[in-house]
């Protein structure tokens, strides 16, 4: 696999220059945090609490995005039998689990201050918790199987089974009466959100995205060593 990574010039650039992603992420994060804490004004309803959402929302997006990504990789692995695709599933799942855990933690802190409770059995919260359990289940399943091509296929199917949870997370706020507010980022994004909030949110998302990419490359190299 390493042979593939270093032979393929496309991946070689990414692997060799992986620290650029870390520095890029750090720079974006500092810029984003500066905007979040110093440039934007508090929300008329939530006050300063709104600042938590600039890390909670990117974490939530990433937890779903990573799951969607590893599902695509699992599908590619099963259909085209590309070993590299499974490597992305293998190393992407712990990163997705980390972001899902951070989503739950930051959401709980925000929930305690806003709703007065750390946790509510709300459809959105429950479906994100299920996503976390699927990530955990993947780890447990991985540790209970010997690493063979058969186990790689079983793990890929397991990931694909969990894909149905993604539309449930997305539409849970529309399908059920939830405590969690409906989606803010939609066609009429500036109807639900002040335009000054959009850029910091985007910057924080890009910062965490590049951090996730850096972790992915780091884990890929570590796995090979």
């Amino acid at each position: 696999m390493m042979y593939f990574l270093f032979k393929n010039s496309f991946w070689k650039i990414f692997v060799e220059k992986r620290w650029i992603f870390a520095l890029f992420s750090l720079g974006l994060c500092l810029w984003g945090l500066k905007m979040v804490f110093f440039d934007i004004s508090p929300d008329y309803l939530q006050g300063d609490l709104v600042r938590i959402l600039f890390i909670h929302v990117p974490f939530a997006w990433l937890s779903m995005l990573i799951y969607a990504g590893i599902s695509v990789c699992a599908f590619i692995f099963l259909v085209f039998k590309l070993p590299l695709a499974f490597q992305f599933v293998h190393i992407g799942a712990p990163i997705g689990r980390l972001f899902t855990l951070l989503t739950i933690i930051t959401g709980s802190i925000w929930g305690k201050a806003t709703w007065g409770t750390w946790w509510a059995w709300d459809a959105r919260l429950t479906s994100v918790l299920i996503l976390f359990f699927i990530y955990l289940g993947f780890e447990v399943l991985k540790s209970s199987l010997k690493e063979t091509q058969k186990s790689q296929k079983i793990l890929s199917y397991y990931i694909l089974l969990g894909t149905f949870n993604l539309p449930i997370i997305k539409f849970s706020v529309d399908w059920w009466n939830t405590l969690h507010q409906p989606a803010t980022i939609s066609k009429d994004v500036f109807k639900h959100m002040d335009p000054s909030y959009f850029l910091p949110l985007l910057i924080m998302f890009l910062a965490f995205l590049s951090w996730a990419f850096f972790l992915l490359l780091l884990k890929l190299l570590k796995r090979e060593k």
Partner: protein
Amino acid sequence: MILKILKHFFKIEKNLIGSAILFSLLYGFLYSFFWLDSLSLKGFALLTWINILFALFLISPDIYAPDLADGSLDFLFSQKLSVLNLFCAKIIFIFLGYFIPILGSAILNGIFFNQDLATIIHVILGPLILAPAIILLIHTGSLLTLNSAASGFLMPILMIPFFIPIFIFGISISIKLQENFPSSPLILGAFGMDIFYGILGIIFSKFLMEEHFR
């Protein structure tokens, strides 16, 4: 061929079927001690879903165990049994042998809890709509047990995250049906779930069965 295997399954797994039905009836009986004799539809649906999923969860590690223990699967394979026939027979057997009797005992529990007929029908329709997804996931869980070194309930436990949305959808369907709102996106979502888990369950089961019974 499928009928022959089905007869065989009913013969050798009658104890397990009996245990599942007894469990379901005792479950309702125990709740009746808590003076829950007139539950709301939501409460009754909740108890019914816990009953169905818990009973199926308990039997899932043993779905293939009796056939493997007495060597009958080896015998059937020696008589040119195909994996497809075995799969079809097992799915039909889980539906007729476990799912329908457990659903029947849920109806009896509804009578114990003084539910009216309409409520019982609305509650029972939820699991029936989601039956393909439930059965294929149970079957996949049992095949995972066969294919891994971990024994007991580990593999069925790993399937629980996929059952929770089914559980939530099932209860929501019953509520929507009682509100005469069948065009709800939840019902479409439930059918989507059946198709998704149905197709993926068949492909996953085929792979696991070919690996184990090769």
